[in-house]
Structures are given as structure tokens and as C-alpha cells.
């Protein structure tokens, strides 16, 4: 059974239809990429999956790990194993990185009927993972994302992903705002998290991210629908021809 099965998904924002019938199924352990031009509905899809308010599903279904995802609140989806790496990670003045991570971990433990995590053990675990991603102790002590560079914010997202160990990682334009070095660090972080029990949905405008994170399948999203699906070679076709064909095809 697929980890996530999206069927005929329609969604609108502020009364405007954005997603117009998405069908997508990801098996456990697979990495899929969604590529598409600006305004095709890429970010909307990520928000709909994460359960953001204001993104209204008007038709279709999403089954995640056997459960009806659309019936769950955003926090329940996260606890169930969905992780959205934000395109624009949010600044939380007054909330330190360490506190933020601890709250997220303890929310999961509470939902599982477990007690709060041991503070020392937690600190050790986070530090080890942070080090691998070049996230310094100083960054963990600071307020989440406040004053962070674009690269630091994205590395921080991947750190959260690594600490929370989700079943499905949705990476929303993780490459945006990154220079080539930062892109490498972030991609390595993501690749290190690839495993049999973890699927990924990599959303991007550009092919370059997929040079680093090699997907099993690529879907082209345009006009709110998946227009084409193929293997990794599809990224190169798009690089050569652009999205123009799909925009026309749907029009």
C-alpha cells in the first residue's frame, strides 16, 4: 500500500480554484519530485498536505498511512508523520531553537502516551544532528530563524526534519535562496535521511536541486494538475524545453 495516496484533489484559496484534480501516489521509501512553473499550485499542494487554514479542499481524498489525512488538524498530521520543510521558514522571536525542538518532540511523545524526553539525552541527540548540518550551538540558543541567513534557515529546517524523523518529508522549494555551497549541505542533509521507511516529496522550480537529491519519479505540475510523470530523465527534458509546452497543453 502506498504511504500517501492523493486522489482527484481539488483545492481553492480565497474562493479561487488552484488545485484541479491531482492524482499522486508515493510508496514508502520513494522520493518523488514535483516540478512546475510559478503559480502552478506547487506551494498550495504542500500547504494542503500540511493542513494550513485557508486552503480549502473542495473535492478528492488523501489517504496517509491508511488514515484520512483531510480529517486531521495540522498538528495531528505532523504527529502522524508529515513534515513540511517551509519555503520561507518562519521567525519566532522569543522562542529558542532548542525549546522549539523540545516542544515538537514532546508533543509526539505525549500523543504516544509517553513522558517528556530526558533533557540531557535530548541535548546530546540534537547536538549530534546539528553538527552534521553545520547548525551551531549558538544558533540553537537563538530565537528560531530570527536573524538567520537563507542558508541557515534551510539547514534549520532539515535539522528539525532529522530530529522529528517523519514518514513523509515535503520539501517546498528548499533550494530557493540557496547558493551552490548551501545547496550542497542541505541536499546532503536530506540524502542522509533517505531510508526505506521514509518517503519524500521534493517540490522545485528548477532541475538543479534534483542533481543533488535524485528522485525516483518526477511529476510536472501545471494549471493545478499533474501534466506528465516520468523518471529522473524528465528533469533534463524540462531543463531544455521549459514549462511552456505544459502551460499550453492545459490552456
Amino acid at each position: 500500500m502506498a504511504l500517501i495516496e492523493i486522489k482527484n484533489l481539488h483545492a481553492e484559496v480565497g474562493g479561487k480554484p488552484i488545485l484541479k484534480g491531482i492524482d499522486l501516489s508515493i510508496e514508502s521509501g520513494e522520493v518523488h519530485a514535483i516540478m512546475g512553473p510559478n503559480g502552478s499550485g506547487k506551494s498550495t499542494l504542500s500547504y494542503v498536505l500540511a493542513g494550513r487554514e485557508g486552503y480549502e479542499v473542495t473535492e478528492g481524498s488523501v489517504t496517509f498511512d491508511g488514515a484520512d489525512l483531510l480529517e486531521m488538524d495540522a498538528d495531528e498530521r505532523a504527529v502522524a508523520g508529515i513534515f513540511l520543510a517551509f519555503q520561507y521558514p518562519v521567525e519566532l522571536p522569543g522562542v529558542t531553537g532548542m525549546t522549539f525542538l523540545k516542544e515538537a518532540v514532546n508533543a509526539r511523545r505525549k500523543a504516544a502516551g509517553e513522558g517528556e524526553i530526558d533533557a540531557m539525552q535530548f541535548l546530546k541527540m540534537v547536538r549530534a544532528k546539528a553538527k552534521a548540518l553545520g547548525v551551531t550551538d549558538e544558533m540553537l540558543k537563538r530565537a528560531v530563524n530570527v536573524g538567520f541567513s537563507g542558508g541557515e534557515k534551510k539547514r534549520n529546517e532539515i535539522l528539525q526534519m532529522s530530529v522529528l524523523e517523519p514518514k513523509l518529508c515535503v520539501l517546498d522549494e528548499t533550494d530557493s535562496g540557496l547558493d551552490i555551497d548551501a545547496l550542497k549541505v542541505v541536499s546532503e542533509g536530506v540524502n542522509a535521511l533517505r531510508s526505506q521507511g521514509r518517503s519524500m516529496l521534493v517540490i522545485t522550480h528548477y532541475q538543479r536541486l534534483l542533481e543533488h537529491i535524485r528522485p525516483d519519479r518526477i511529476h510536472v505540475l501545471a494549471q493545478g494538475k499533474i501534466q506528465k510523470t516520468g523518471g529522473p530523465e524528465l528533469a533534463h527534458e524540462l531543463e531544455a524545453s521549459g514549462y511552456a509546452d505544459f502551460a499550453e497543453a492545459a490552456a
Partner: protein
Amino acid sequence: MTNDHSNPLMQVSPATPGWLKPLRTAAAARYGQLGLPKLRTEAWKFTNLKVLETLAVKPASSGEAHPDLPAALAELDACRILIVDGKVVDHGTLPDGVEAAGLDADAPDWVRETVGTIASIENHPFTALNTAQFDGGIALRVARGKSVETPIHLVHLSTAGATDEAEISHPRVLVIVEDGAILDLVESHQGTGAYIRNTVTEVSVGADAKLGHYKLQADSREAFHVAMTAVTTKGKSSYDNFALSTGSRLARNEVRGHLGGQHIDYHVNGAYMATGDQHLDTSTFIDHAEPNCTSHELYKGVLLENGHGVFQGKILVRPDAQKTDGYQMNRALLLSPTAEINSKPELEIYADDVKCSHGATVGELEDDQLFYLLARGVPRDRARAILVAAYVDEAIDTIDREPVREAFRAVASEWMTHHVAAVG
């Protein structure tokens, strides 16, 4: 006992030692002239006291049961002075360098000379009322050059029974920190039932002296809390005031500071958190009389349900007060459509070489911040509480004394867990 409607809230005069008689007589006369403030009184335009005009009151009679201190404050290492309805009931051994005295017939000269000279009865009816009626009270003095490590904690309590009459008391406190001395003073206000606590605290900070002054107002939700803290500071001193207000039905926290020397560092900060029908008023006045002083003022409000916050802050920079550096800000977070805030920041500047800024903001919780926490699995209630606590933290962080800061943070956090998490 019935009310004297010409002088609302006035009761039978307490025992008056000879030295206090002229001051008391003047105060009673002044209160008779002023009466209770009306909305047309500029200083009280946002705080309606009409309910007090007809409220039946009686003098406080000490009950037995008292609320416990919040755990975090009880754990703070401090010398505690228990003050029930304005009367000192008990105090532990005072730290070396600190002496205490009553405001009675046995009051030493330093008390007689100072009481009534810092808090003016002229335009402040409640100060006049307190001065006319206080019964008991305490004066503390830190000797010149003494650095007192252990904070002194004034534990103000009231216990009113379940009657139709509100019990009224007028706690009076005088604190003198002599030149070069250092002290941290904590005050907490708690109680049960319906009562009016009308406190006046006079504070004198000597040259090169340092006073941290931290107040928790967690009075009963049926209580009225009116507090005047009047401060006078001398050159090169520092004063760090913080008030955390969570209690009472209606509260007014007024802090007036006179900066009477050069290179004074003066801080008045606080956080007010109201829910239900609570009305929490913060009014401050900072009088820059001399050059080269700094004042910093940051208040943060969190208003739930029908909570009503009021902030009135005035900074006066007199002609001589060149190179004044003044900052004043009131920020309020409205968490319900029926919550309300009135902000009136005010600068009056007569010197031409100063750096002063002021402002006020009103906001709601940011949707994207809330969603970020939700998307990491933090439940909505908890996410809200985290964001509100972080909001208030900016003010709490101004508390200079670390153990007090953490105790106040814990008290605020407890409030979040109870109130913010409970609101959908």
C-alpha cells in the same frame, strides 16, 4: 458601617502619632476636595471608578486563611516581611545593613522626615486617602554603601470574607536606599474575596545607589488594587522597576519617578495580562530634571476575553535635562475581539539636545507563526501559549536580577498555561 458619600471610601481615622498629624490633616482635607477621580479627570480618563462611589466598604479585619505565594516566588531566597491589610505581621531577620521601623509614635527621625515628601497628595486622591488613613506600614533603610545580597520581599495579603462590603486597607511603605547602597525589593499582592488595597510606596534612591524593585500584583479577582509608587533618585543611581499584573478586578499601577541628578539609569517595565472582565491600568510619569540620564520603559499587555488594558506614560524632559536618552513603548496583544487597549504615550520635551522615542502597538497572534508550530506537531493551545509567553518574555527579560527574573517568568508562564491554553 455606612458610607460617607461626601467622602467615599473614608473610614474612621486610625491612631495618629503627633508627628503625623499635620500631614494627615492636610491629606484628609485634600481628599475631601478632590474626591474620587472621574472620567473627565485626564489622568483617569480610561479607568472608570464609578463602581467605587457606591460600593459599601468597611475597614479590613484580618482573616485567617491566606493564599499561598506562587511556587516560583516562594522558592526565591529572600527575607520575607508579611504585611496583612497594611499591617506588618511578621518579618524574618533582616539582612545586614537593613533596618526597619514602623510609621508610628516610635518612628525614628529618618522616617518622620521622609514620609509624605516623595508621594504628593496634591493631585492624587488615592495618595491623599492613603496618607489620611494608613494604619501601620513599614519603613526600610539600607545603610550607606551597604550591598544587600538577599532580596527583601514584602508579602502583601488581604483576606476579605464573603460579605456585601469590600474591606479597605491602605498599606504604606517607605524605602530609603542610601548613597552607594544596593538592594533588591520584591513585593507581591494577593488575597481572597472583595477588598480594596490602596497602597502607597515611597522610594528614595541615593547617589551611586542601586535598587531593583519588582512587583507581582496577583490580587483576588474581586479586588480593587490601587498602587502609587513614587520614586526619587539621585545622581549616578540606578532604579529597575518591573510590575507583573495578573490579578484583581480593577487595578491601577502608577509609578512616578523624579530623576534628580545626572547619569541616572531609570527603568520602568512590566507586563499586564487580563482576562474575564479585568481592567488593568498602568500609568507612569518620568521626570527628567537633570542632564545625561537614561530612562527605559517597555510594557507588554496580553488581553483575553473582555480584558481591558490601559497604558498612560508620560516623559517630561525639563529644559536643563540635555542629553536625555528616553525610550517608551507599550505593546499589547489582543486575543479576543472584545478585548480592549487604550494607549496614551506622551512626551513633553523642553530641552533641545535629547534622544527620545515612544510608541504603542496593538497586534494579534501571527497566523504564520501559529501554523509553523502546528506543522511541527505542537497542539494549537500549546502553540498559542508558547507564542504569548515569548511575547511577554521581551518585557520580563528587562528584569535585572536573575533569580527574580526567572521567578517572574515562571509565574507568567503558569498564567499562560491556565488562561491562554484554555481559550480556543
